[in-house]
């Protein structure tokens, strides 16, 4: 693992309470996740699931309330100065909003050049190297893009610039938070293809944060599903999609529309909304919406069930569900 989070928690103080303790918003609870070289790990979940906060913790943009971040096995908090700089170069973000991520008053050459400068590239060389990076992300002819401002680019081109900027420090890991969610379908496909090519060529690791299960299935090697701040299921992508052992994962897959009118399937429609992380439900946090909740789910927090192959699910009935899948497919 290049980058790992172990037992991460992130609580935010929320409002005031005259009597009793101050309430905490528990955005991330007990999250353990890591990415290895050349690997894509997807973090999926709905809004408020804590996936973005987890990404920010792994980027070092926020300090965890508890738990630790490991960079090449070393705890981030104790990294000596030079290694800390190496961490900053090696772990780079790409965000959803390609416009907000770029300074509107700086040219593409300047934006990409900042990363190069951080990597020790002198002013004379920066323009040439920036052009090479633009070429690498498919902005050609590169010289014609160097002096453009963000507003002179399309959404897809801006996201390519953001990727080029991330690549400027020759990172090992890119934490991409919904990198294609704001893009149109045809442009989204271009960016996904680009990210996959860069991964092959540079042995990049991606932590790919997304709400779109179809995109995740096409791009990720491993997937972790989050609900209310916790990872409820994780494992190799195909394992999780073929044998979803947590009812929430199954419902998410079932709720995702399929672009094929022949698809006939039983839809699982979860009732209600995700509860507030200020007042998480007792027992299993998913039980109020769970179609198969039993008495134990209302009272007891479920154990993490190991389903082999690195596939785990936090559900009292995960083992039974796995057995049912095994019985169905000989």
């Amino acid at each position, binding site marked *: 693992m290049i980058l790992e989070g172990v037992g991460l928690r992130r609580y935010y103080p929320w409002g005031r309470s005259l009597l009793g303790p101050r309430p905490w918003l528990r955005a991330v609870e007990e999250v353990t996740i890591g990415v290895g070289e050349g690997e894509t790990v997807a973090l999926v979940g*709905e809004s408020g699931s804590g996936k973005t906060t987890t990404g920010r913790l792994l980027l070092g943009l926020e300090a965890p309330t508890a738990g630790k971040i490991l960079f090449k096995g070393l705890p981030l908090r104790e990294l000596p100065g030079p290694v800390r700089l190496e961490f900053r170069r090696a772990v780079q973000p790409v965000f959803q909003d390609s416009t907000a991520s770029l300074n509107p008053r700086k040219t593409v050459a300047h934006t990409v050049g900042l990363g190069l400068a951080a990597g020790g590239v002198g002013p004379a060389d920066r323009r040439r190297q920036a052009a090479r990076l633009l070429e690498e992300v498919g902005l050609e002819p590169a010289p014609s893009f160097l002096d453009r401002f963000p507003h002179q680019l399309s959404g897809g081109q801006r996201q390519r610039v953001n990727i080029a900027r991330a690549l400027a420090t020759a990172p090992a890991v890119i934490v991409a938070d919904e990198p294609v969610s704001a893009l149109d379908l*045809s442009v989204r496909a271009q960016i996904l293809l680009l990210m996959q090519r860069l991964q092959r060529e540079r042995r990049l690791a991606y932590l790919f944060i997304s*709400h779109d299960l179809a995109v995740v299935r096409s791009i990720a090697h491993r997937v972790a599903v989050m609900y209310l701040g916790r990872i409820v299921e994780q494992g190799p992508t195909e394992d999780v999609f073929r044998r979803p052992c947590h009812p929430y994962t199954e419902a998410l*897959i079932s709720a*995702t529309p399929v*672009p094929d009118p022949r698809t006939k399937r039983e*839809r699982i*429609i*979860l009732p209600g909304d995700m509860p507030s992380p200020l007042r998480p439900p007792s027992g299993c946090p998913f039980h109020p919406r769970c179609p198969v909740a039993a008495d134990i789910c209302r009272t007891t927090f479920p154990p993490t069930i190991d389903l082999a192959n690195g596939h785990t699910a936090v559900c009292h009935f995960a083992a039974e569900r796995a057995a049912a899948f095994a019985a169905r497919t000989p």
Partner: protein
Amino acid sequence: MSDLLVLDHLTTRIDTARGSLVPVDDVSLRVPAGSAVGLVGESGSGKSMTAFSIVRLFPTTAARVQSGRVFLDGQDLMTLDEAALRRVRGRRVGMVFQDPSTYLDPVLTVGEQVAEAWAMHFGWEGAWERAVEALGQVGLPEPAETARRFPHELSGGMRQRAIIAQAIVCRPQLLIADEPTTALDVTIQAQILDLLRQLRAQMGMTLLLITHDLGVVAEMCEIVAVMYAGRIVEVGPAQPVFLSPRHPYTQGLLASAVSVQQAQVITRVMEGSVPDLRHPPAGCRFHPRCPHVMPTCRTEVPPMFACEGQTAACWLHDPAVVAREGRP
């Protein structure tokens, strides 16, 4: 089956200080009574402006319908003045838009807003009772209680249900839903799509669904129209359009989509992006991105050609052009 809604060569233009553009260019479409028709396209395809043009309710005063006609149940809406059109909006055509928070007034309770939608057409007598009934119809729990709540007290999914209640309270023949689930999480989207299916079945309502999401169209609609840069490029029953698309743009769009049900990687993508409508390409607007482009495509606007199950606006379906210019 008769057509409830017919768009006949509808063209809408927007005149701005920086030039004019035609976001809806010669669009013709038939929506059979009781059906669900999906209008699908990427941003800038003109799909929302087409919806606005039907009831002439534009987000900008610079937009106006330039030519063409719109028939609702045989009546030409283009001949109606503003007052007459107001009696159509909400009463005979219900509308649901993308963002559930911007279409609700924060200082009025949801009950008042739904009641108002009814009272606009039928007066205030009995409006509150009818509003509570509509809120129940859209699956809001304890509708009498919920009616007294303000929009900010509801979740995003509940707000979208309230908007739908507002749209259906007058029992319209046609519901136009413009990206009704785009701002919602996927489990909430599933709830809202299920609700729209139920309402269709219960009220015999016709649905015109505007979306960028091919999956939503495939699940909800029997007929699909694909728009690109202001024009409909392909239209037909959902199965042939999805399974054997006849327009290269539809083909490219479907190749760009991934399914949650299959382990698949994207291998083929359309290069480039949707053109700027201020300066649309001549001829077929897709020609700069088309892998099959021929000389005619660069200069001549393709008409709709009937293919087996559907129609497609592409010169590849004109045997004479293909014989003359097509690649062997």
